[in-house]
């Protein structure tokens, strides 16, 4: 994180200021196009739009109250194949930026021509609530942004305990926590610096006060996080509890398809590889007296954890997409905090840090000896 930034005062709201900033950049040719959320014609949701027309930027809302599609998915669909020539900027929520960076490590996003811009995120309203009350929610969310309220209770549950609402390795960052009608534009990378240079903005303001403000809110959120993890822990402790938590699961795999990290065209758990033949299923049923459907609920959930929890950014999309209200996001956040801690890795925090499963060190994970030992002694007790 940079220590200095440029300071701008504004009158007509932060969103307008951000739009003006982008328009200025487009006029000066710093960006050829931008990717921004635009409210759909029916006003009940937002869609990511790639635009090169300055007049459409006015229709966009850089800080949307909802996150229907994770921004990383939008960028993935744009840059997965081939190299473009347009210089594109996008403003996304911090968790979307982090997911984008994870996807870049997984070679699903090409960040070469992309400038990532983010902001101190007040959270997102759950989609189901926004869908029905979109106009009220727009007003409510505008107030939240203008009042700098980072602990609103109407946001998604994961947003309530998101400690990384501001820490994000974006190129440019709009920091406004605890400021009134002012915003710091903070260049975090060379790309960001050059944008500010081209705009002839000097990043000379000291950020210590803003950083302190962020730290204060972080403290509140960390406390929430500990509380939530305490709640989640017993619900996933042991197979019985896990089964109970997921008993409602209908196997629709919406959580997987809404997940920005799960990029496989065909999920392993949807493929024929994890299909069982009719005879096998009937045999199992006869042996056990009965089997439930859909099969492999726990297999899918735990399998997905093993596949992507190291890159989970706790954006909460899975929970929004679950038709039977299983707190998937909370569980994944809890589990991924454990798996990521094992490797002292934080998903999406640095573009240079490789994904733990892609590298190894000769001397690491010293705990494993202990685990193996314990397992052996456990085993001998059973004998």
């Amino acid at each position, binding site marked *: 994180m940079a220590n200095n930034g440029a300071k701008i005062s504004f009158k007509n709201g932060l969103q307008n200021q951000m739009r003006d900033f982008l328009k200025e950049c487009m006029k000066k040719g710093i960006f050829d196009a931008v990717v921004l959320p635009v409210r759909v*014609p*029916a006003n009940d949701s937002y869609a990511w739009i790639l635009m090169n027309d300055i007049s459409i930027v006015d229709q966009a809302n850089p800080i949307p109250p909802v996150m229907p599609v994770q921004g990383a998915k939008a960028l993935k669909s744009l840059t997965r194949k081939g190299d473009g020539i347009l210089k594109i900027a996008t403003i996304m929520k911090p968790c979307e930026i982090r997911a984008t960076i994870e996807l870049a490590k997984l070679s699903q996003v090409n960040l070469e021509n992309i400038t990532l811009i983010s902001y101190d995120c007040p959270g997102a309203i759950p*989609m189901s609530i926004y869908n029905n009350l979109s106009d009220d929610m727009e007003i409510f969310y505008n107030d939240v942004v203008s009042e700098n309220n980072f602990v609103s209770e109407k946001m998604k549950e994961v947003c309530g305990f998101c400690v990384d609402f501001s820490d994000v390795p974006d190129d440019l960052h709009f920091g406004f926590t605890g400021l009134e009608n002012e915003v710091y534009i903070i260049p975090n990378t060379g790309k960001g610096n050059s944008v500010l240079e081209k705009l002839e903005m000097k990043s000379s303001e000291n950020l210590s006060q803003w950083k302190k403000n962020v730290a204060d809110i972080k403290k509140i959120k960390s406390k929430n996080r500990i509380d939530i993890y305490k709640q989640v822990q017993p619900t996933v402790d042991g197979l019985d509890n896990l089964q109970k938590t997921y*008993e409602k699961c209908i196997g629709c795999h*919406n959580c997987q398809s809404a997940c920005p990290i799960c990029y496989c065209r065909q999920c392993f758990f949807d493929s024929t590889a994890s299909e069982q033949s009719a005879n096998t299923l*009937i045999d199992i049923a006869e042996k056990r007296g009965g*089997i*439930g459907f859909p099969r492999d609920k726990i297999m899918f959930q735990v399998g997905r954890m093993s596949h992507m929890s190291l890159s989970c950014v706790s954006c909460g999309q899975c929970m929004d997409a679950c*038709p039977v209200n299983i707190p998937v996001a909370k569980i994944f956040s809890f589990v991924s905090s454990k798996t990521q801690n094992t490797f002292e890795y934080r998903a999406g925090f640095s573009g240079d840090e490789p994904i733990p499963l892609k590298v190894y060190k000769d001397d690491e994970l010293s705990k494993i000896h202990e685990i193996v030992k314990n397992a052996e002694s456990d085993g001998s007790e059973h004998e």
Partner: protein
Amino acid sequence: MSKVIKIDINSKQGLLDFLEHLLSNNEISGVMSLRKINENGICDYGLITEVDDLKSIEPFAPVMPVNASHILSSITPAKKPIIAIIKPCELRGFVERVKRKQGSMKNIITVSYTCGGVLPLNTFQSDDNEKIVSEYFETIKGTDTPENVRPVCKACEHFIPMTADITISVFGNKDFNSKSCLMMNTEQAIKLSKSYKCEIVEKKMDDKLMDEILKKRKAGKEKLYKEIAITKDGLDEFVDIFGKCIGCHGCSRVCPICYCTLCDFESSNYDYKVDLIENELSQKDGLRLPPDTIFFQLGRLNHMSFSCIGCGQCEDVCPAGIPVSSIFKKVGESTAELFDYIPGKDVEEIIPVMMIKEQEFPEVGE
């Protein structure tokens, strides 16, 4: 007229007794049915092979966690007879799947019933499930469809199972809690019930009653179609409906008809090179990302609408709250009508896009 087994206990117990008899005498190897999995009344589909475990079944529970045709596909062709207790639309879904070679009727004895509708998945999550369900069963003793069922259920005209081996009267049955009648529709079912000692009578379904229900359902359908009607020509209204689609494709994954392991619209056919997108941007002011959200809906309609059985599963899983199933049912009816096709009516029929008639649509092509 068909042979009817009459038992003087309530319908669920009667069916249970029949199933216990068959299972303990090895006439069948298993029963596939909804069953209760916790004290809150949450149900899932189970394949039960132990007589003792049969007690947990809730054959008439008004829920549909999964469209059972998916499950039947995965356990067929079965080597030994299995009884499957499923809803009429699930049965029709299975028939459509069998036509697409995604399952087999072999050794599957289907039990279905006149269906009062299914409660949406999120209704069935609360703690007062028991109250909701008992109210539901109280309502369907009459001819009214409960208000809180899925929107498409209120508009469903095919509440009488079409091809079931055994039919049970539930919707509109006043004696549901005191008597049970199992209608044996096919030879297979009659053969199966030979060893079961019981009173067998000749009986027919109460046509007058069924007509009354049908009339109400038709009115319900009219109401639903009015609600989702597109009144103006052009793209706007259509975009209003599907504009909020997040492209999760949950609707296609739970759809009984969409059987492809990899949906065409998820395949690499629709991955675009970035220069292609940039080129398109030069002709248009704005492009939606990810692309093809609305194209997917139209494409899926084109692939499966004529077989849409209107089970409502897609609408239930839609995280964006789009009335997917109502629209698919409406469009599906219009496409199936072209070929006088009723999805799920007859397993011997061929799906419309797999067959041709030389003399049809003479007006086309000039």
